[in-house]
Protein backbone atom coordinates (compact mmCIF):
# COMPACT_ATOMS: atom_id res chain seq x y z
CA UNK A 1 0.00 0.00 0.00
CA UNK A 2 2.72 2.38 1.01
CA UNK A 3 4.71 1.30 -2.00
CA UNK A 4 1.78 1.91 -4.30
CA UNK A 5 1.34 5.40 -3.04
CA UNK A 6 5.03 6.08 -3.34
CA UNK A 7 5.00 4.85 -6.92
CA UNK A 8 2.03 7.00 -7.79
CA UNK A 9 3.79 9.96 -6.28
CA UNK A 10 6.97 9.19 -8.20
CA UNK A 11 5.03 9.09 -11.43
CA UNK A 12 3.38 12.33 -10.50
CA UNK A 13 6.73 13.88 -9.70
CA UNK A 14 8.05 12.72 -13.05
CA UNK A 15 5.15 14.33 -14.87
CA UNK A 16 5.59 17.55 -12.94
CA UNK A 17 9.29 17.59 -13.67
CA UNK A 18 8.76 16.96 -17.36
CA UNK A 19 6.34 19.84 -17.56
CA UNK A 20 8.54 22.08 -15.45
CA UNK A 21 11.36 21.51 -17.92
CA UNK A 22 9.28 23.33 -20.49
CA UNK A 23 8.81 26.34 -18.25
CA UNK A 24 11.04 29.36 -18.62
CA UNK A 25 14.32 28.77 -16.85
CA UNK A 26 15.07 30.31 -13.50
CA UNK A 27 16.15 33.89 -13.91
CA UNK A 28 14.86 34.26 -17.45
CA UNK A 29 14.04 37.96 -17.82
CA UNK A 30 12.31 37.33 -21.14
CA UNK A 31 9.83 34.81 -19.82
CA UNK A 32 6.18 35.57 -20.49
CA UNK A 33 5.63 36.67 -16.92
CA UNK A 34 8.69 38.87 -16.66
CA UNK A 35 8.95 40.64 -20.00
CA UNK A 36 7.56 44.04 -20.72
CA UNK A 37 5.23 43.34 -23.64
CA UNK A 38 3.40 40.15 -24.35
CA UNK A 39 2.93 38.38 -27.66
CA UNK A 40 0.11 40.71 -28.59
CA UNK A 41 2.19 43.78 -27.83
CA UNK A 42 0.27 44.68 -24.71
CA UNK A 43 2.04 45.53 -21.46
CA UNK A 44 2.53 42.68 -19.03
CA UNK A 45 1.33 43.25 -15.50
CA UNK A 46 4.60 42.52 -13.69
CA UNK A 47 6.72 45.02 -15.63
CA UNK A 48 3.92 47.55 -15.65
CA UNK A 49 3.90 47.54 -11.87
CA UNK A 50 7.65 48.12 -11.76
CA UNK A 51 7.48 51.19 -13.93
CA UNK A 52 4.22 52.66 -12.62
CA UNK A 53 4.12 51.92 -8.90
CA UNK A 54 6.04 54.98 -7.81
CA UNK A 55 4.13 57.26 -10.16
CA UNK A 56 0.74 55.93 -9.17
CA UNK A 57 1.09 55.74 -5.42
CA UNK A 58 4.17 57.70 -4.39
CA UNK A 59 5.50 54.63 -2.64
CA UNK A 60 8.84 53.06 -3.47
CA UNK A 61 8.02 49.55 -2.29
CA UNK A 62 6.31 48.01 -5.29
CA UNK A 63 5.08 45.02 -3.36
CA UNK A 64 3.24 47.27 -0.95
CA UNK A 65 1.65 49.17 -3.80
CA UNK A 66 0.47 46.05 -5.53
CA UNK A 67 -0.66 44.53 -2.29
CA UNK A 68 -2.66 47.46 -1.06
CA UNK A 69 -3.59 49.26 -4.23
CA UNK A 70 -3.44 47.45 -7.56
CA UNK A 71 -4.63 44.18 -6.11
CA UNK A 72 -6.09 45.49 -2.90
CA UNK A 73 -9.06 43.19 -3.06
CA UNK A 74 -6.75 40.21 -2.73
CA UNK A 75 -5.48 41.73 0.46
CA UNK A 76 -9.00 42.35 1.67
CA UNK A 77 -9.63 38.68 1.01
CA UNK A 78 -6.46 37.81 2.86
CA UNK A 79 -7.53 39.88 5.85
CA UNK A 80 -10.87 38.18 5.80
CA UNK A 81 -9.15 34.81 5.68
CA UNK A 82 -7.28 35.76 8.82
CA UNK A 83 -10.50 36.92 10.39
CA UNK A 84 -12.19 33.71 9.30
CA UNK A 85 -9.42 31.78 11.02
CA UNK A 86 -10.13 33.60 14.25
CA UNK A 87 -13.86 32.99 14.05
CA UNK A 88 -13.20 29.40 13.04
CA UNK A 89 -11.08 28.73 16.11
CA UNK A 90 -13.73 30.32 18.27
CA UNK A 91 -16.43 28.26 16.62
CA UNK A 92 -14.52 25.00 16.75
CA UNK A 93 -13.00 25.25 20.19
CA UNK A 94 -15.66 27.01 22.23
CA UNK A 95 -16.83 24.66 24.94
CA UNK A 96 -20.52 24.91 25.64
CA UNK A 97 -21.65 25.31 29.16
CA UNK A 98 -23.79 22.36 30.00
Amino acid at each position, binding site marked *: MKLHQALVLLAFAA*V*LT*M*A*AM*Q*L*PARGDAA*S*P*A*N*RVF*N*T*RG*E*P*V*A*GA*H*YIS*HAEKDAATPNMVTVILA*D*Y*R*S*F*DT*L*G*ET*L*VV*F*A*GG*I*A*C*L*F*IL*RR*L*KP
Partner: protein
Amino acid sequence: MMTSHIPLLIPATFLLAALLIPLAALLWRRLSWLLAVAATGLCFFYAVKGLAHVTTAGRLHYHLAGWQPPFGIEFVLDPLSAFFSVFVTGVALLALIHAGRVVAHEVSGVDMGFYALAMLLLAGLSGMVVTGDLFNLYVFLEISALASYSLIARGDPRAPLSAFRYLTLGTTGAAFYLLGLAFVYMSVGSLNLADVSHLLPDVGDTRPVLLGLSLMVLGIGLKMALFPLHAWLADAYTHASSAATALIAPIGTKVAAYVLLRLMFFLVDPQYLRDQTPLPAIVGCLGAAGMLWGSIMAMCQKELKRMLAYSSVAQVGYIALGIGLASPLGFIGATLHALNHACMKACLFLVTGNFRVRLGHSTLPRLVDDLRRTMPWSAAAFTTAAISMVGLPPLAGFFSKWYLVLGSIQQSNWVFVAVLVASSLLNAVYFFRVLERLYLTPLAPPDDTDVAAAAATREAPASMLAPTLVLAGALLVLGIFNAWIVSTFINPMIPSRLGW
Protein backbone atom coordinates in the same frame (compact mmCIF):
# COMPACT_ATOMS: atom_id res chain seq x y z
CA MET B 1 -25.31 54.12 -10.39
CA MET B 2 -25.85 51.13 -8.14
CA THR B 3 -26.19 48.78 -11.08
CA SER B 4 -22.58 49.19 -12.11
CA HIS B 5 -21.48 48.25 -8.61
CA ILE B 6 -23.45 45.01 -8.49
CA PRO B 7 -20.52 42.66 -9.23
CA LEU B 8 -18.73 44.13 -6.25
CA LEU B 9 -21.72 44.37 -3.97
CA ILE B 10 -22.56 40.69 -4.03
CA PRO B 11 -19.40 39.45 -2.30
CA ALA B 12 -18.71 42.71 -0.45
CA THR B 13 -22.07 42.72 1.28
CA PHE B 14 -21.37 39.27 2.59
CA LEU B 15 -17.94 40.34 3.78
CA LEU B 16 -19.42 43.37 5.49
CA ALA B 17 -22.03 41.24 7.18
CA ALA B 18 -19.36 38.78 8.31
CA LEU B 19 -17.50 41.63 9.96
CA LEU B 20 -20.58 43.18 11.49
CA ILE B 21 -21.98 39.99 12.96
CA PRO B 22 -19.40 39.60 15.78
CA LEU B 23 -20.02 43.20 16.75
CA ALA B 24 -23.78 42.88 16.47
CA ALA B 25 -23.76 39.72 18.54
CA LEU B 26 -22.31 41.70 21.41
CA LEU B 27 -25.55 43.68 21.47
CA TRP B 28 -28.10 40.98 20.97
CA ARG B 29 -27.54 37.33 20.06
CA ARG B 30 -30.49 37.02 17.78
CA LEU B 31 -29.24 39.97 15.77
CA SER B 32 -26.59 37.83 14.10
CA TRP B 33 -29.25 35.68 12.49
CA LEU B 34 -31.26 38.67 11.39
CA LEU B 35 -28.17 40.30 9.97
CA ALA B 36 -27.15 37.18 8.10
CA VAL B 37 -30.59 36.76 6.58
CA ALA B 38 -30.80 40.43 5.71
CA ALA B 39 -27.40 40.44 4.03
CA THR B 40 -28.19 37.33 2.06
CA GLY B 41 -31.53 38.74 1.04
CA LEU B 42 -29.84 41.92 -0.08
CA CYS B 43 -27.31 39.95 -2.12
CA PHE B 44 -30.06 37.90 -3.66
CA PHE B 45 -31.73 41.11 -4.66
CA TYR B 46 -28.50 42.41 -6.17
CA ALA B 47 -27.94 39.16 -7.98
CA VAL B 48 -31.42 39.18 -9.47
CA LYS B 49 -30.96 42.77 -10.51
CA GLY B 50 -27.59 41.92 -11.98
CA LEU B 51 -29.05 39.01 -13.90
CA ALA B 52 -31.79 41.23 -15.25
CA HIS B 53 -29.22 43.77 -16.30
CA VAL B 54 -26.95 41.19 -17.87
CA THR B 55 -29.72 39.63 -19.92
CA THR B 56 -31.05 42.92 -21.17
CA ALA B 57 -28.07 45.25 -21.34
CA GLY B 58 -25.00 43.07 -21.53
CA ARG B 59 -22.30 42.05 -19.11
CA LEU B 60 -20.96 44.14 -16.28
CA HIS B 61 -17.25 44.60 -15.71
CA TYR B 62 -16.10 46.07 -12.44
CA HIS B 63 -12.54 47.25 -12.11
CA LEU B 64 -11.58 47.14 -8.48
CA ALA B 65 -9.70 50.18 -7.24
CA GLY B 66 -10.21 51.60 -10.68
CA TRP B 67 -7.27 49.81 -12.32
CA GLN B 68 -7.61 48.35 -15.77
CA PRO B 69 -7.89 44.55 -15.93
CA PRO B 70 -4.52 43.03 -16.56
CA PHE B 71 -3.15 45.22 -13.75
CA GLY B 72 -6.05 45.37 -11.37
CA ILE B 73 -8.57 42.79 -10.34
CA GLU B 74 -11.72 42.60 -12.32
CA PHE B 75 -15.14 41.32 -11.34
CA VAL B 76 -17.30 40.20 -14.21
CA LEU B 77 -20.99 39.60 -14.20
CA ASP B 78 -21.64 37.76 -17.42
CA PRO B 79 -24.63 35.50 -18.08
CA LEU B 80 -22.92 32.53 -16.46
CA SER B 81 -21.78 34.23 -13.28
CA ALA B 82 -25.00 36.20 -12.89
CA PHE B 83 -26.99 33.00 -13.20
CA PHE B 84 -24.87 31.19 -10.65
CA SER B 85 -24.86 34.07 -8.21
CA VAL B 86 -28.64 34.26 -8.33
CA PHE B 87 -29.20 30.68 -7.39
CA VAL B 88 -26.33 30.48 -4.95
CA THR B 89 -27.63 33.45 -3.01
CA GLY B 90 -31.23 32.35 -3.38
CA VAL B 91 -30.65 28.87 -2.04
CA ALA B 92 -28.43 30.25 0.69
CA LEU B 93 -31.13 32.69 1.71
CA LEU B 94 -33.63 29.89 2.16
CA ALA B 95 -31.10 27.73 3.98
CA LEU B 96 -30.26 30.58 6.35
CA ILE B 97 -33.89 31.33 7.13
CA HIS B 98 -34.28 27.66 7.87
CA ALA B 99 -31.08 27.64 9.92
CA GLY B 100 -32.49 30.00 12.52
CA ARG B 101 -34.15 27.22 14.45
CA VAL B 102 -31.70 24.46 13.59
CA VAL B 103 -28.73 26.43 14.87
CA ALA B 104 -30.52 27.10 18.10
CA HIS B 105 -31.17 23.38 18.28
CA GLU B 106 -27.85 21.90 17.21
CA VAL B 107 -25.03 24.41 17.64
CA SER B 108 -26.47 26.74 20.22
CA GLY B 109 -24.00 28.87 22.10
CA VAL B 110 -21.84 29.61 19.11
CA ASP B 111 -24.47 30.92 16.78
CA MET B 112 -22.51 34.11 16.24
CA GLY B 113 -19.64 32.02 14.91
CA PHE B 114 -21.99 30.05 12.74
CA TYR B 115 -23.50 33.06 11.06
CA ALA B 116 -20.21 34.86 10.66
CA LEU B 117 -18.70 31.79 9.06
CA ALA B 118 -21.79 31.34 6.93
CA MET B 119 -21.37 34.87 5.65
CA LEU B 120 -17.70 34.25 4.94
CA LEU B 121 -18.60 31.04 3.16
CA LEU B 122 -21.11 32.84 1.00
CA ALA B 123 -18.70 35.70 0.40
CA GLY B 124 -16.14 33.21 -0.80
CA LEU B 125 -18.57 31.32 -2.98
CA SER B 126 -20.12 34.38 -4.55
CA GLY B 127 -16.70 35.90 -4.96
CA MET B 128 -15.51 32.81 -6.81
CA VAL B 129 -18.50 33.24 -9.06
CA VAL B 130 -18.04 36.89 -9.93
CA THR B 131 -14.29 37.25 -10.01
CA GLY B 132 -12.50 37.46 -13.30
CA ASP B 133 -9.05 36.98 -11.88
CA LEU B 134 -7.53 33.59 -11.39
CA PHE B 135 -5.58 34.43 -8.26
CA ASN B 136 -8.43 36.33 -6.69
CA LEU B 137 -10.42 33.19 -7.28
CA TYR B 138 -7.91 31.33 -5.17
CA VAL B 139 -8.33 33.83 -2.35
CA PHE B 140 -12.08 33.47 -2.42
CA LEU B 141 -11.70 29.73 -2.66
CA GLU B 142 -9.70 29.77 0.54
CA ILE B 143 -12.17 32.02 2.34
CA SER B 144 -15.04 29.72 1.50
CA ALA B 145 -12.96 26.62 2.20
CA LEU B 146 -11.85 27.83 5.60
CA ALA B 147 -15.40 28.72 6.51
CA SER B 148 -16.74 25.38 5.39
CA TYR B 149 -14.06 23.38 7.21
CA SER B 150 -15.01 25.01 10.44
CA LEU B 151 -18.76 24.99 9.85
CA ILE B 152 -18.52 21.28 9.34
CA ALA B 153 -16.41 20.75 12.44
CA ARG B 154 -19.33 21.16 14.82
CA GLY B 155 -21.94 18.52 14.92
CA ASP B 156 -21.86 15.03 16.28
CA PRO B 157 -18.70 13.69 18.01
CA ARG B 158 -17.11 12.55 14.80
CA ALA B 159 -17.48 15.89 13.09
CA PRO B 160 -14.01 17.27 13.93
CA LEU B 161 -12.21 14.35 12.37
CA SER B 162 -14.25 14.54 9.18
CA ALA B 163 -13.65 18.27 9.11
CA PHE B 164 -9.95 17.61 9.52
CA ARG B 165 -9.96 15.24 6.58
CA TYR B 166 -11.85 17.77 4.56
CA LEU B 167 -9.30 20.37 5.57
CA THR B 168 -6.29 18.36 4.52
CA LEU B 169 -7.84 17.34 1.24
CA GLY B 170 -9.25 20.78 0.58
CA THR B 171 -5.96 22.47 1.29
CA THR B 172 -4.20 20.03 -1.00
CA GLY B 173 -6.77 20.86 -3.63
CA ALA B 174 -6.08 24.54 -3.20
CA ALA B 175 -2.36 23.86 -3.39
CA PHE B 176 -2.86 21.96 -6.63
CA TYR B 177 -4.87 24.84 -7.97
CA LEU B 178 -2.16 27.30 -7.01
CA LEU B 179 0.57 25.15 -8.52
CA GLY B 180 -1.42 24.80 -11.72
CA LEU B 181 -1.95 28.52 -11.75
CA ALA B 182 1.80 28.98 -11.39
CA PHE B 183 2.35 26.89 -14.51
CA VAL B 184 -0.23 28.90 -16.41
CA TYR B 185 1.10 32.21 -15.15
CA MET B 186 4.66 31.35 -16.04
CA SER B 187 3.62 30.37 -19.55
CA VAL B 188 1.30 33.26 -20.19
CA GLY B 189 2.26 36.06 -17.87
CA SER B 190 -1.21 37.12 -16.86
CA LEU B 191 -3.72 36.25 -14.20
CA ASN B 192 -6.82 37.81 -15.66
CA LEU B 193 -9.08 35.10 -16.96
CA ALA B 194 -10.09 36.91 -20.13
CA ASP B 195 -6.52 37.99 -20.73
CA VAL B 196 -5.16 34.49 -20.28
CA SER B 197 -7.69 32.96 -22.62
CA HIS B 198 -6.87 35.65 -25.16
CA LEU B 199 -3.12 35.03 -24.93
CA LEU B 200 -3.16 31.25 -24.72
CA PRO B 201 -3.29 30.61 -28.48
CA ASP B 202 0.10 32.33 -28.80
CA VAL B 203 1.80 30.01 -26.36
CA GLY B 204 4.11 27.81 -28.34
CA ASP B 205 4.65 24.79 -26.17
CA THR B 206 1.41 24.05 -24.41
CA ARG B 207 2.64 21.21 -22.24
CA PRO B 208 3.06 23.30 -19.07
CA VAL B 209 -0.23 25.02 -19.76
CA LEU B 210 -2.03 21.74 -20.12
CA LEU B 211 -0.41 20.34 -17.02
CA GLY B 212 -1.25 23.53 -15.17
CA LEU B 213 -4.82 23.28 -16.34
CA SER B 214 -4.95 19.64 -15.30
CA LEU B 215 -3.61 20.52 -11.88
CA MET B 216 -6.20 23.24 -11.53
CA VAL B 217 -8.91 20.83 -12.60
CA LEU B 218 -7.56 18.32 -10.11
CA GLY B 219 -7.68 20.89 -7.33
CA ILE B 220 -11.16 22.01 -8.23
CA GLY B 221 -12.18 18.38 -8.62
CA LEU B 222 -11.21 17.86 -5.00
CA LYS B 223 -13.41 20.75 -3.94
CA MET B 224 -16.20 19.52 -6.12
CA ALA B 225 -15.95 15.93 -4.89
CA LEU B 226 -15.42 14.55 -8.34
CA PHE B 227 -15.38 10.80 -8.21
CA PRO B 228 -12.09 9.46 -6.92
CA LEU B 229 -11.57 12.65 -4.94
CA HIS B 230 -14.87 12.54 -3.10
CA ALA B 231 -13.68 10.78 0.05
CA TRP B 232 -14.12 13.79 2.28
CA LEU B 233 -17.68 14.55 1.31
CA ALA B 234 -19.72 11.78 2.85
CA ASP B 235 -18.23 12.07 6.32
CA ALA B 236 -18.21 15.81 6.25
CA TYR B 237 -21.88 16.12 5.40
CA THR B 238 -22.98 13.33 7.67
CA HIS B 239 -21.45 14.44 10.91
CA ALA B 240 -21.91 18.18 10.60
CA SER B 241 -24.90 19.95 12.02
CA SER B 242 -27.93 19.97 9.77
CA ALA B 243 -27.74 23.72 9.42
CA ALA B 244 -24.18 23.61 8.14
CA THR B 245 -24.91 20.75 5.78
CA ALA B 246 -27.99 22.41 4.40
CA LEU B 247 -25.97 25.51 3.73
CA ILE B 248 -22.85 23.93 2.27
CA ALA B 249 -24.08 20.85 0.48
CA PRO B 250 -26.31 22.45 -2.13
CA ILE B 251 -24.04 25.27 -3.19
CA GLY B 252 -20.48 24.41 -2.22
CA THR B 253 -19.93 21.78 -4.86
CA LYS B 254 -21.92 23.80 -7.38
CA VAL B 255 -19.57 26.72 -7.18
CA ALA B 256 -16.63 24.39 -7.64
CA ALA B 257 -18.44 23.07 -10.67
CA TYR B 258 -18.81 26.63 -11.84
CA VAL B 259 -15.06 27.10 -11.62
CA LEU B 260 -14.59 23.93 -13.60
CA LEU B 261 -16.96 25.29 -16.23
CA ARG B 262 -14.98 28.52 -16.31
CA LEU B 263 -11.69 26.71 -16.69
CA MET B 264 -12.77 24.24 -19.30
CA PHE B 265 -15.08 26.37 -21.38
CA PHE B 266 -13.74 29.89 -21.03
CA LEU B 267 -10.07 29.74 -20.13
CA VAL B 268 -9.12 27.39 -22.91
CA ASP B 269 -10.73 26.86 -26.26
CA PRO B 270 -13.11 24.00 -25.41
CA GLN B 271 -13.00 22.57 -28.88
CA TYR B 272 -9.26 22.45 -28.85
CA LEU B 273 -9.42 20.87 -25.43
CA ARG B 274 -11.87 18.26 -26.60
CA ASP B 275 -10.18 17.40 -29.85
CA GLN B 276 -6.52 17.57 -28.82
CA THR B 277 -6.46 16.53 -25.19
CA PRO B 278 -8.05 13.80 -23.13
CA LEU B 279 -8.98 16.23 -20.34
CA PRO B 280 -12.73 16.56 -21.07
CA ALA B 281 -13.00 12.86 -21.70
CA ILE B 282 -11.34 12.15 -18.36
CA VAL B 283 -13.60 14.56 -16.53
CA GLY B 284 -16.64 13.04 -18.21
CA CYS B 285 -15.62 9.49 -17.41
CA LEU B 286 -14.88 10.38 -13.81
CA GLY B 287 -18.28 11.99 -13.66
CA ALA B 288 -19.88 8.85 -15.04
CA ALA B 289 -18.00 6.66 -12.58
CA GLY B 290 -19.01 8.96 -9.76
CA MET B 291 -22.64 8.73 -10.79
CA LEU B 292 -22.60 4.99 -10.46
CA TRP B 293 -20.42 4.83 -7.37
CA GLY B 294 -22.28 7.54 -5.52
CA SER B 295 -25.62 5.96 -6.27
CA ILE B 296 -24.49 2.53 -5.23
CA MET B 297 -23.03 3.85 -1.99
CA ALA B 298 -26.18 5.84 -1.34
CA MET B 299 -28.21 2.67 -1.60
CA CYS B 300 -26.26 1.09 1.26
CA GLN B 301 -26.73 3.92 3.74
CA LYS B 302 -29.01 3.93 6.73
CA GLU B 303 -28.49 7.50 7.77
CA LEU B 304 -30.48 9.91 5.67
CA LYS B 305 -27.82 12.60 5.61
CA ARG B 306 -25.17 10.14 4.56
CA MET B 307 -27.38 8.84 1.81
CA LEU B 308 -27.93 12.35 0.57
CA ALA B 309 -24.21 13.02 0.77
CA TYR B 310 -23.43 10.07 -1.48
CA SER B 311 -26.22 11.15 -3.71
CA SER B 312 -24.38 14.46 -3.99
CA VAL B 313 -21.33 12.61 -5.24
CA ALA B 314 -23.51 11.09 -7.91
CA GLN B 315 -25.12 14.36 -8.82
CA VAL B 316 -21.81 16.12 -9.10
CA GLY B 317 -20.99 13.35 -11.53
CA TYR B 318 -23.86 14.50 -13.73
CA ILE B 319 -22.42 17.98 -13.86
CA ALA B 320 -18.95 16.65 -14.60
CA LEU B 321 -20.38 14.47 -17.33
CA GLY B 322 -21.99 17.49 -18.90
CA ILE B 323 -18.72 19.39 -18.69
CA GLY B 324 -16.86 16.42 -20.11
CA LEU B 325 -19.11 16.39 -23.16
CA ALA B 326 -17.66 19.81 -24.04
CA SER B 327 -20.58 20.55 -26.31
CA PRO B 328 -23.35 23.13 -26.08
CA LEU B 329 -25.84 20.53 -24.97
CA GLY B 330 -23.46 19.26 -22.35
CA PHE B 331 -22.93 22.82 -21.18
CA ILE B 332 -26.67 23.41 -20.91
CA GLY B 333 -27.11 20.13 -19.09
CA ALA B 334 -24.32 20.86 -16.63
CA THR B 335 -25.50 24.39 -15.83
CA LEU B 336 -29.11 23.42 -15.57
CA HIS B 337 -28.25 20.47 -13.41
CA ALA B 338 -26.19 22.66 -11.13
CA LEU B 339 -29.24 24.84 -10.62
CA ASN B 340 -31.65 21.96 -10.26
CA HIS B 341 -29.45 19.96 -7.99
CA ALA B 342 -28.83 22.95 -5.75
CA CYS B 343 -32.58 23.31 -5.26
CA MET B 344 -33.23 19.60 -4.89
CA LYS B 345 -30.42 18.96 -2.46
CA ALA B 346 -31.26 22.03 -0.46
CA CYS B 347 -34.85 20.86 -0.19
CA LEU B 348 -33.82 17.37 0.86
CA PHE B 349 -31.37 18.61 3.47
CA LEU B 350 -33.84 21.11 4.82
CA VAL B 351 -36.35 18.32 5.29
CA THR B 352 -33.67 16.32 7.03
CA GLY B 353 -33.18 19.28 9.32
CA ASN B 354 -36.93 19.33 9.99
CA PHE B 355 -36.80 15.67 10.94
CA ARG B 356 -33.83 16.26 13.18
CA VAL B 357 -35.47 19.10 14.99
CA ARG B 358 -38.71 17.26 15.51
CA LEU B 359 -37.57 13.65 15.80
CA GLY B 360 -34.05 14.14 17.03
CA HIS B 361 -32.61 11.84 14.39
CA SER B 362 -32.72 11.10 10.70
CA THR B 363 -31.87 7.44 10.61
CA LEU B 364 -33.82 5.51 8.05
CA PRO B 365 -34.71 2.35 9.97
CA ARG B 366 -36.02 4.49 12.79
CA LEU B 367 -38.27 6.62 10.63
CA VAL B 368 -41.27 4.59 11.60
CA ASP B 369 -43.56 7.24 12.85
CA ASP B 370 -46.53 8.11 10.84
CA LEU B 371 -44.69 11.01 9.26
CA ARG B 372 -47.24 11.17 6.52
CA ARG B 373 -49.68 12.31 9.14
CA THR B 374 -47.54 14.18 11.65
CA MET B 375 -45.29 16.04 9.24
CA PRO B 376 -47.27 16.02 6.01
CA TRP B 377 -45.71 19.08 4.46
CA SER B 378 -42.14 18.05 5.12
CA ALA B 379 -42.91 14.64 3.73
CA ALA B 380 -44.52 16.17 0.67
CA ALA B 381 -41.52 18.41 0.08
CA PHE B 382 -39.21 15.44 0.42
CA THR B 383 -41.31 13.49 -2.04
CA THR B 384 -41.23 16.28 -4.57
CA ALA B 385 -37.48 16.62 -4.34
CA ALA B 386 -36.95 12.87 -4.42
CA ILE B 387 -39.06 12.45 -7.51
CA SER B 388 -37.18 15.27 -9.10
CA MET B 389 -33.89 13.60 -8.21
CA VAL B 390 -35.07 10.42 -9.86
CA GLY B 391 -35.74 12.51 -12.91
CA LEU B 392 -39.42 12.17 -13.51
CA PRO B 393 -41.07 14.91 -15.50
CA PRO B 394 -42.34 17.56 -15.11
CA LEU B 395 -40.09 18.23 -12.15
CA ALA B 396 -36.83 20.02 -12.66
CA GLY B 397 -34.50 17.05 -12.38
CA PHE B 398 -35.81 15.48 -15.55
CA PHE B 399 -34.83 18.30 -17.83
CA SER B 400 -31.19 18.57 -16.97
CA LYS B 401 -30.90 14.84 -17.50
CA TRP B 402 -32.72 15.27 -20.77
CA TYR B 403 -30.08 17.69 -22.02
CA LEU B 404 -27.33 15.43 -20.81
CA VAL B 405 -28.86 12.47 -22.62
CA LEU B 406 -29.29 14.58 -25.73
CA GLY B 407 -25.70 15.72 -25.52
CA SER B 408 -24.39 12.20 -25.05
CA ILE B 409 -26.46 10.90 -27.93
CA GLN B 410 -25.30 13.72 -30.14
CA GLN B 411 -21.75 12.53 -29.63
CA SER B 412 -22.84 8.90 -29.92
CA ASN B 413 -21.46 8.32 -26.47
CA TRP B 414 -23.59 5.33 -25.59
CA VAL B 415 -21.65 4.56 -22.44
CA PHE B 416 -22.68 7.87 -20.97
CA VAL B 417 -26.27 7.25 -21.98
CA ALA B 418 -26.22 3.88 -20.29
CA VAL B 419 -24.67 5.37 -17.16
CA LEU B 420 -27.27 8.12 -17.07
CA VAL B 421 -30.03 5.56 -17.30
CA ALA B 422 -28.50 3.25 -14.73
CA SER B 423 -27.81 6.05 -12.30
CA SER B 424 -31.37 7.33 -12.57
CA LEU B 425 -32.63 3.88 -11.77
CA LEU B 426 -30.36 3.61 -8.76
CA ASN B 427 -31.59 7.03 -7.66
CA ALA B 428 -35.09 5.67 -7.84
CA VAL B 429 -34.13 2.69 -5.74
CA TYR B 430 -32.71 4.61 -2.84
CA PHE B 431 -35.25 7.39 -2.87
CA PHE B 432 -38.25 5.14 -3.04
CA ARG B 433 -36.81 3.29 -0.09
CA VAL B 434 -37.14 6.49 1.90
CA LEU B 435 -40.54 7.28 0.46
CA GLU B 436 -41.80 3.88 1.55
CA ARG B 437 -40.63 4.76 5.04
CA LEU B 438 -42.47 8.02 4.92
CA TYR B 439 -45.73 6.88 3.48
CA LEU B 440 -46.31 3.22 4.06
CA THR B 441 -47.10 1.35 7.18
CA PRO B 442 -44.06 -0.70 8.09
CA LEU B 443 -44.55 -4.44 7.96
CA ALA B 444 -42.57 -5.38 11.02
CA PRO B 445 -42.67 -3.42 14.28
CA PRO B 446 -39.38 -1.60 14.95
CA ASP B 447 -36.92 -3.34 17.21
CA ASP B 448 -35.70 -0.03 18.62
CA THR B 449 -37.27 0.69 21.94
CA ASP B 450 -36.44 4.37 22.02
CA VAL B 451 -38.50 5.07 18.97
CA ALA B 452 -41.56 6.04 20.89
CA ALA B 453 -39.64 8.67 22.78
CA ALA B 454 -38.53 10.26 19.56
CA ALA B 455 -41.94 10.35 17.97
CA ALA B 456 -42.78 13.50 16.12
CA THR B 457 -45.93 15.09 17.27
CA ARG B 458 -46.22 18.03 14.99
CA GLU B 459 -44.99 19.65 11.86
CA ALA B 460 -41.82 21.73 11.85
CA PRO B 461 -42.18 25.41 12.75
CA ALA B 462 -43.16 27.84 10.06
CA SER B 463 -39.72 29.41 9.74
CA MET B 464 -38.36 26.02 8.74
CA LEU B 465 -41.32 24.83 6.77
CA ALA B 466 -41.61 27.89 4.58
CA PRO B 467 -38.15 27.61 2.96
CA THR B 468 -38.65 23.90 2.48
CA LEU B 469 -41.90 24.39 0.69
CA VAL B 470 -40.57 27.26 -1.36
CA LEU B 471 -37.81 24.99 -2.62
CA ALA B 472 -40.22 22.18 -3.36
CA GLY B 473 -42.39 24.59 -5.29
CA ALA B 474 -39.34 25.94 -7.05
CA LEU B 475 -38.61 22.48 -8.38
CA LEU B 476 -41.94 22.40 -10.12
CA VAL B 477 -41.56 25.94 -11.40
CA LEU B 478 -38.03 25.28 -12.63
CA GLY B 479 -39.23 22.19 -14.40
CA ILE B 480 -42.11 23.92 -16.08
CA PHE B 481 -40.18 26.99 -17.09
CA ASN B 482 -36.93 25.28 -17.95
CA ALA B 483 -37.25 26.11 -21.62
CA TRP B 484 -37.51 29.75 -20.72
CA ILE B 485 -34.53 29.46 -18.41
CA VAL B 486 -32.48 27.73 -21.05
CA SER B 487 -33.31 30.11 -23.84
CA THR B 488 -33.15 33.29 -21.78
CA PHE B 489 -30.25 32.65 -19.46
CA ILE B 490 -28.25 29.62 -20.46
CA ASN B 491 -28.08 30.01 -24.21
CA PRO B 492 -26.42 33.44 -24.00
CA MET B 493 -23.72 32.05 -21.75
CA ILE B 494 -22.57 29.32 -24.08
CA PRO B 495 -19.10 30.34 -25.14
CA SER B 496 -19.09 31.33 -28.77
CA ARG B 497 -16.04 29.21 -29.47
CA LEU B 498 -18.06 26.13 -28.68
CA GLY B 499 -20.23 26.64 -31.75
CA TRP B 500 -23.93 26.09 -31.48
